[in-house]
């Protein structure tokens, strides 16, 4: 019963902040609303007993990606604080598309007979993830580090001021 209450509160925070993100007329306000959205998702991960992923989510999403988005907003046009129109002419069609997809996804996913497993998650997921990353999934680990290196170099080169 407590778990259901926690789930409802966290989902409400996540979805309400996401609505502010996608509909606000002020771009800084919608970037700032990303923080409660990500924190709500962190709470959902903790409910799913994935505490290491929750910690990394706060560290990277709420701490770094939000800061990056706010930086770019302040260094480009949004930093002037002028009120410009934020939505283009596709608003009715996109509402329709998103609503249709939502109905379809919820209808299919809620009714599908997913196989339920009987065993439980290991108690310390951090050490389990570490073992998995270095034994079974070491190729994923190495390729991800390579992608990070390439993205780092690419971002620096693309954003550099041409002399």
């Amino acid at each position, binding site marked *: 019963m407590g778990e259901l209450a926690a789930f409802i509160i966290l989902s409400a925070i996540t979805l309400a902040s996401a609505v502010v993100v996608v509909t606000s007329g002020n771009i800084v306000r919608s970037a700032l609303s990303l923080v409660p959205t990500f924190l709500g998702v962190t709470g959902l991960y903790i409910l799913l007993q994935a505490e290491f992923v929750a910690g990394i989510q706060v560290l990277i999403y709420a701490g770094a990606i939000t800061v990056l988005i706010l*930086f770019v907003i302040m260094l480009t046009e949004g930093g002037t604080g002028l009120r410009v129109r934020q939505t283009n002419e596709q608003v009715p069609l996109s509402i329709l598309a998103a609503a249709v997809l939502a109905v379809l996804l919820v209808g299919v996913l809620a009714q599908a007979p997913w196989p339920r497993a009987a065993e439980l998650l290991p108690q310390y997921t951090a050490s389990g993830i570490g073992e998995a990353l270095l034994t079974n999934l070491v190729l994923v680990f190495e390729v991800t580090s390579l992608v990070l290196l390439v993205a780092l170099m690419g971002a620096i080169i693309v954003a550099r001021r041409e002399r």
Partner: protein
Amino acid sequence: MSWGLEIVKAVGLTIAVFTFLAVVAAMLGVLLERKIGGWIQSRLGPKHVGPQGLLQTVADTIKLLQKEHIAPRAADTAIFNTAPLIVAVAGLLDWIVIPFGPNLIVRDLNIGVVFFAAMASLTVVGILVGGFASNNKYSLLGGLRSASQMISYELPLATALIAVAMQAGTLSTLGIVNAQAQRGWFVFLQFPAFVIFLIAATAEVNRVPFDLPEAESELVAGYFSEYTGMRFALFQLGEYAEMFAMAAMATTLFLGGWRGPILPPVIWFLLKMYLIVFLLMWTRWTFPRLRLDQLLNLSWKLLLPAGLIWILITGFFITFF
């Protein structure tokens, strides 16, 4: 209905931690800063209010609380008012994973160290939007500089935390203190990580020598130029709480936490924490301020490679010894 009990316990502990911090960090910390600064500069600090100036912070707090709240007209009021709250709450949430004694911890998360780094990185969002929402060039520049400094120094901080977690074999802060019982304090085993942690912690809380974002001679007061009264007090509370949290984390990770021979554990913890706080304040009044490019060079070109090489060396020593 045990979840109701958990909520009551959480609220009670929140009030306890907040009171502890408001008294210890804000009051004693501000007073210590001014007294220690005075002694290092061959003068007496505040000495008129109360015996030996001990009630100075009470006077300061009353002064701040009764100041008028001024907001710039063109500032976005919702964001302007939320920014100090983010900084204060993130600085206070750090204290959940800090152990004061063998079972005196608010919650022993088994990702304690990652949680600490995550809360330290949430402060940046508050500072950035605080600088932006003031609608003032100097605040915006101060906010951007401060945010770039804090995110640059999160990486060496994380490498120091990773090295300690590797040595102890666990991410939980209680586990790290217990691991120091067997192998000795980590300040000897992991001395480079200790140095990197202290430098990165000083930069994370925007203290001298890394306080270019709030330098009076450069940027008026940086990102909190436009804040008055209670909001200014909230920013300061967040910064002091985070400085004390970094000192408390340094004692937990490196100086053996609460362990000590004769005195009760809480006294040992407070003694060690105040030792690190004294060290931080000593560096404040001794070193000149670093310029922004020197500061960023120090982080990216010196501390981050040093931290990564130290992780490699730690891994080597753990595997073979």
